[in-house]
């Protein structure tokens, strides 16, 4: 009895320590910029840096754009595949999982080759074009998470019958998607959105190789040049990510009016 309890407890403690100790150490370090006292001086310096504000804003805007574009791409695709081509589901799922297997570095070199200034679509020729390319890259990176979340959300409602009900009432497919399907997978879309946000905020490879002023490269730059500020930045990035997770959890926990739908 005792032994069977002891094992799991030790495992949990070790895991917690593995996770929490570095976090606490980083936090403690970020508070010790001024010798001898604990202060938020490092955070003040970070927030006062205009570069921080610029890069952070850039990444937030890029994340929002990637979320909107991703949702616009994924929701109708998942709907269409489930409705009309259920046999293609595993194929589409495999395609959406590819970004997990192909390293971002490969992706970005591919992009640069495809869209360089002497190509047919010279996106990298201008800053605006490169921003578009970056957002498209982020959509690709977040595809596995977005698609899974939305597809699972659609699995939880009977989209075929709901679509047929809408059609028998005279509605077009587009209208059904907007007024019936989307509201019912809202929680799933949001959880995909927060995952996308968390990925984009700290992303380094794409932003750095496309030479965009994003938060990830800024983090790396500060990390190599300063002592205390990187810890503060790491804590900030961590807090943002966790805020996303908490939002996701709370939105996911609220059932979208489906408790007694069937049976």
């Amino acid at each position: 009895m005792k032994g069977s309890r002891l094992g799991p407890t030790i495992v949990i403690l070790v895991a917690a320590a593995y996770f929490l100790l570095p976090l606490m150490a980083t936090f403690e370090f970020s508070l010790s910029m001024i010798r001898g006292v604990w202060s938020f001086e490092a955070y003040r310096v970070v927030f006062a840096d205009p570069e921080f504000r610029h890069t952070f804003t850039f990444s937030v805007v890029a994340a929002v754009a990637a979320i909107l574009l991703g949702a616009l791409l994924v929701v109708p695709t998942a709907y269409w595949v489930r409705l009309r081509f259920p046999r293609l589901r595993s194929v589409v799922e495999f395609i959406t999982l590819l970004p997990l297997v192909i390293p971002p570095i490969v992706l970005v070199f591919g992009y640069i080759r495809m869209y360089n200034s002497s190509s047919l679509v010279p996106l990298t020729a201008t800053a605006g074009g490169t921003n578009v390319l970056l957002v498209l890259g982020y959509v690709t990176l977040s595809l596995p998470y977005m698609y899974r979340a939305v597809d699972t959300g659609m699995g939880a409602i009977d989209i075929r019958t709901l679509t047929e009900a809408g059609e028998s009432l005279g509605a077009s497919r587009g209208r059904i998607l907007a007024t019936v399907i989307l509201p019912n997978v809202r929680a799933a879309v949001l959880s995909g959105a927060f995952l996308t946000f968390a990925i984009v905020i700290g992303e380094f490879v794409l932003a750095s190789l496309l030479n965009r002023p994003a938060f990830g490269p800024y983090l790396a730059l500060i990390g190599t040049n300063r002592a205390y500020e990187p810890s503060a930045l790491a804590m900030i990035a961590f807090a943002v990510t966790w805020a996303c997770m908490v939002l996701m959890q709370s939105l996911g926990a609220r059932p979208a009016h489906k408790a007694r739908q069937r049976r």
Partner: protein
Amino acid sequence: MSFVEIEGVGKSFGPNAVLKDFNLTIAKGEFISLLGPSGCGKTTMLRIIAGFESATTGRVRIGGEDVTRLPPNKRHIGMVFQAYALFPNLSVFDNVAFGLKVAGQGKAEIARRVMELLELIKLPDLAHRYPYQLSGGQQQRVALARALAPSPRVLLLDEPLSALDAKIRVSLREEIRSLQRELGITTIFVTHDQEEALSMSDRIVVMNAGCAEQIGTPFEIYNHPRSRFVASFVGTLNALDGVAVGEGVAAIDGQTVAVPGLAASPSAEQFTLALRPESVSLSPRPEATNRLNGTIEDVSFLGSVVRIRLRIGGSTLLFDTFNNPASPPPPRGANATVHFAPGDLQVLESGPVVLPEAAE
């Protein structure tokens, strides 16, 4: 005047022919049931009328208009599904209003029509509830109101009652029928429950393996089934093994009974006789000149009716008697004699000879 015309509709899924040359015309305001066992193609036929499935051959006309190639959202049909299929994100009011909004009606007009329908289904107080806050029966009534709101030309119902429990099923089927009469809407109702079909319909289409086996009023279908399949599917049917022993005379387990219309057969041929439970009684009646002796195998007390199973040689005979407080039903194992009129016996098609008039 035929309002819905289904002409030679066939449907195959790959090599699998699900519907074969299905023909049916439905008058305006008529209540038609498609009745048949699981997998016989009822849902497929209904979905072809709704436009969710396209017919491989044949055509469908509604109100004179050929709708065979029309998408479902252009057909002006109302559909009620087995699983209710209410929009979970919309309130009862908005569910019912959905079709009206799609049709582009004004706000006031929509509100008036929705409340009118909620009155009709007797749920005016639940307008602001969400589907998950309703019982199954309430959800199905809302689904009915939603389908009826845009005044469709035809109402289609696919086993709308089968997810509900027995009591609600009976009360809701009466409600659907009276609502249908009140609105005079042409209705096609799919069910595999013969009691539902018999009690609700103007006409029943009994389907078997993708074909319309018999089309007729409940009275015709029940009393004059045209085939063995219809006879056995509609109602409880007693099939008794008989041997022809002479003109109009057969033997069941060695006991002779009169069978009008049975031709004399040279050899003692085996065949099957059908007998409805309600034509059999334990007490003699003047016209019930046929009798059979047997052993009571089982007695089930169902309330107003007592259902008795009698064993006669190799066959069993199920029949009902009304509950009589003055005389308890016979005990199991007892011997009993049952009485029935010769005209109640029907020779099923596998038998030797059936004169066509025999059923009339």
